[in-house]
């Protein structure tokens, strides 16, 4: 259900000054068939313009969302996902295990929703409906925490850092540490969206050393457990 309107028109309609960077980012979103997150958009946009910074992407995405050019979805996985605002309304089915998003539209549901709003004396302006569950592929699989690393494109595998084997990498989804530790981790580069790699485990099993922003950090297990990552496939990744 992707729009075919050209970018120029899109930006103009949304009253956004069409700078070069904005065009690139809009194009990246439009060319993606799914619901990409900011990081993905950043990588896509960088293929078009390698000088683009992630800060620009974030800023631009916020602008687009404010102006209604894109829809911002929060599917509960800690990342905002974007899609070009569709001309016709649709709802979403989200798989909690692999993150697959399915779009659907049912006239009965829309009608029913409007009816509910009317009965409550609401003047309905906008709505979103997101249904969470297991997709057909994930049905009957074990919980993801015990799964082997995902290899299928688009599949997500969430673990805490202490569960990764040496050589495995992950993108930080959440840093769940208490204030003091949290500040320290932030200042050392452990921020959401950052890709980190487990280098090795100490001979006695603890601490572990990880690679972040080009430096090696040693963390103990309790600290590592506070960091939730989404496993990203690596060439050198191996399991015990």
């Amino acid at each position: 259900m992707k729009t075919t309107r050209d970018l120029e028109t899109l930006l103009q309609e949304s009253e956004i000054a069409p700078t070069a960077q904005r065009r690139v980012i809009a194009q990246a979103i439009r060319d993606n068939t799914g619901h990409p997150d900011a990081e993905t958009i950043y990588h896509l946009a960088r293929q078009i313009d390698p000088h683009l910074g992630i800060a620009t992407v974030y800023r631009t995405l916020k602008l687009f969302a404010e102006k209604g050019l894109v829809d911002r979805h929060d599917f509960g996985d800690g990342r905002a996902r974007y899609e070009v605002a569709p001309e016709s309304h649709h709802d979403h089915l989200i798989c909690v295990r692999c993150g697959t998003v399915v779009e659907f539209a049912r006239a009965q549901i829309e009608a029913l929703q409007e009816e509910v709003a009317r009965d409550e004396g609401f003047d309905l302006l906008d709505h979103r409906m997101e249904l969470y569950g297991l997709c057909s592929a994930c049905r009957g699989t074990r919980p993801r925490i015990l799964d082997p690393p995902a290899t299928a494109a688009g599949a997500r595998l969430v673990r805490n850092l202490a569960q990764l084997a040496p050589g495995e990498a992950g993108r930080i989804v959440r840093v769940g540490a208490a204030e003091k530790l949290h500040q320290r981790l932030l200042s050392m580069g452990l921020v959401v969206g950052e890709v980190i790699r487990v280098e090795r485990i100490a001979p006695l099993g603890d601490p572990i050393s990880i690679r972040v922003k080009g430096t090696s950090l040693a963390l103990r297990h309790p600290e590592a457990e506070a960091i939730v990552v989404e496993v990203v496939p690596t060439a050198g990744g191996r399991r015990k």
Partner: protein
Amino acid sequence: MTLRIAFAGNPNVGKSALVNAIAGTRLHVGNWPGVTVEKKEATFTFAGEEVRLVDLPGTYSLSSYSIEERVTRDYLLNERPDVVIDVVDATHLERNLFLTLQLLELGIPVVLALNMWDEAKERGIEIDTELLAKVLEVAVAATVATTREGVGELLPTARRLAAARPATIAAHNAACRDASLAEARPHVARYGPLVDPEVRLLGEALHRDAAALVERVPCRWLAVKLLEGDVGAQALLDGTGEGLRKQIAEQRRRIQTLAGDDPATVISDGRYGVAKGVVAEVIRQRPIDRRDLTELIDRVVLHRWLGIPIFFAMLWFVFHTTFDGAQPFVDFINQVITGPVERWFLVGLTAIGAPGWVASLVSEGVIGGAGFVLTFVPILFFLYLFMGILEGSGYMARAAFVMDRFFHTIGLHGKSFIPMILGFGCNVPAVYATRSLDSYRDRVLTSLLIPLMSCSARLPVYAVFVAAFFVEWRSTVIFSLYLLGILLAVGMGFLFKRSLFRGEAPVFVMELPPYRFPTFRSLMLYIWEKLQSFVRKAGTYILATSVVIWFFLNLPWGVQNPGDSYFGRVAGTVAPLFAPVGFGTWQATGALLTGVIAKEVVVSTMGEIYTPEPKVAATPPAVAAEIAEIGRGFVAACGDSVVAILAGLRLLPAPAQAPPPSALAQRMRDTFTPLRAIAFMVFVLTYIPCVVTMAALGQELGWRWSAFAAAYLLSLGWGLAFLTYQGGRLLGFA
């Protein structure tokens, strides 16, 4: 006008090396008031102007969660230097900029020193320094601290910058209030359309409701920190109205709701966003095929099976070389001090007609005390040499990584291992070695346990008793004492962790820096700083103690028998306290009292008390010949040191050992029983650390901890000796 320059930067970026390269031996090393974070300062004249340098502790951020962070920000806020030289690692620009962006918010002109420029070049990293300077509105200098490349530019650049843009708060705040100007200044970190308006809003509120505060503290920095929820920034608000606090809480909630994440994260994200953007603009990374040496070394040094053996081998080497290598120099210094130097003083004093007691005071109190201090210098020299190499090369962090699991269980840090092991040689360098620990809590805890490591000075005491009572079980007895010390340390570690340091779980997030070669110059400067501070600080106390003890031993005037001196009387008075533990005689107590100066003195005091020797009269010296002799002695000591080190490595046969004293053994069998001997040895193992260790503890942790250590060890020692003696009696031993 003095130009005040502060050096700031992340740890492991070569900041100290850079400061050393500029200030060198002019650096004065001390502590920041109230905390044991090292403060290095230097004041000198540069191109006709007085310059004062301050080396701030290495930090990753300007929040207030570690001592280093607090010291750094308090200095920058309260002292407001004219320029900050921000030392960044050119190979890790992005992460380093996280701190830089916070420094920029303070409104103090910043010189960015892109250190390790050579390494960056090797790695194919090209940084457009002109663009970087323009983007961040700072001055940029490429430096290599180790070769001093580019270092000479720093001071002139800093001076130019300070003159062009004075670091007044008024100027900064004016610029900050003018929103349009702030918009036009790209160097001010931006946090996106969500946070920026909140910062501006709070900035305005601060100008309105906390005008006095904003005159002292840059408003933008304060606003950002308050939105982050920083504890230190909140403390600054004391005395301002409740309305301000409410507004901050409300604004924080707004960010939380809109961004779906806590404000600190959102703001940090914003900072990294800017850092990433800046790096993307100014860095060209040439692809380069380069084997990472650090990774190769780590593969071996941190290997699952090899890691621990390598660590112990390294430890053994350091331990052995420090103590065996230093011993010939210790002997040499002893000989020179007690030989020629003492004689010269005595002759000099006789020549000016000083009375006999002055001569005795000088030779026994002053020269004895000073000589004693100096005998530690060779040991500390070797210790700091190795500590410098271990820290500078980056291995220290690996050692901590390898051993942390083990030490974590008793509430310590992996880095505690090295000080603890050094404690077996001598507690003094061990206490100083705790400097490598990052947190004050770890430093205190480790230092409190170090005296339980049976140092080499306690060995002669055991040796005398063992020779007199337990010849057959010699090694078993001595080994058991060492083991007892270790078990006590583990036990006390548990106890302290659960009592004194409860709830203060230290954060273990440690950087494993890339391996580097420490430069000779930086090593020597490091050793020099430490040694002179030891001699000045600890030395003063030891000398004073030594003189005080001399008076106690020699008063009232003309006392002949040590038992009649004040010292003897004090010993006699406290002796009954030791009756329940098996050695309530004034001789034993007296020996223990002098043992406070140094544990091995227990033996010599016992020797003097039990088998007195007549003093040998001084012969007039031949100064020239003796100076030549001293020179020869030093050369011989160097040779012996090399031999001792090689012998320990089993490359040369070990030199013959001196036989243990035997005349004393006979006399001791008359006054002690085996049970009493064991109780005595247990007491010697644990009781009060020696004066030098106490001075070191005082210097490192403050005098309260030093006194606490003495008190707890004394009670522990007494308790254990009591249990040993009374328990033994119950079992039917005498």
